[in-house]
């Protein structure tokens, strides 16, 4: 990259922001994939059942809880 570019604060801020956005998108995509497999057990209908949508909501939150437990466990080793 042009050295002038590497010192451009606006550009650096933009890149940091896009990197964070990409990480968030990646996490949502990963969790959607995992939770879809867990919660959507039959062929998709024209609308989610209430149990399917609450399963998806809970699934993402429990996935986060689990990640925390695993991190703590890992750090205490």
């Amino acid at each position: 990259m042009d050295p002038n570019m590497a010192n451009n604060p606006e550009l650096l801020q933009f890149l940091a922001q896009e990197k964070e956005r990409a990480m968030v998108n990646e996490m949502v995509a990963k969790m959607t994939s995992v939770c879809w497999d867990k919660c959507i057990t039959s062929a998709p209908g024209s609308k989610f059942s209430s149990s399917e949508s609450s399963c998806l909501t809970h699934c993402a939150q429990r996935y986060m809880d689990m990640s925390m437990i695993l991190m703590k466990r890992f750090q205490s080793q």
Partner: protein
Amino acid sequence: MDSYSSPPVGGGASPSPEVLMEQVKTQLAQAYAEEFIETVRVKCFDKCITKPGSSLGGSESSCISRCFDRYIEATGIISRSLFTQR
């Protein structure tokens, strides 16, 4: 990713920061869309084409349309459950 290896426009001259930002945005959006489509392909094939026949049946194609819509909806549900206050 292939799109990242393409040279900057304008030959030897570096693009302006504005142009570069636009390119980064476009390429990220493109990469995201490709990844999304690939995932939906795997998920919906799994759900809708349970026993591949000699041609794609009408119920299979309508299942695929519904599956696509539901996968987008599921992405929204997951995203909201993570980023809204419980």
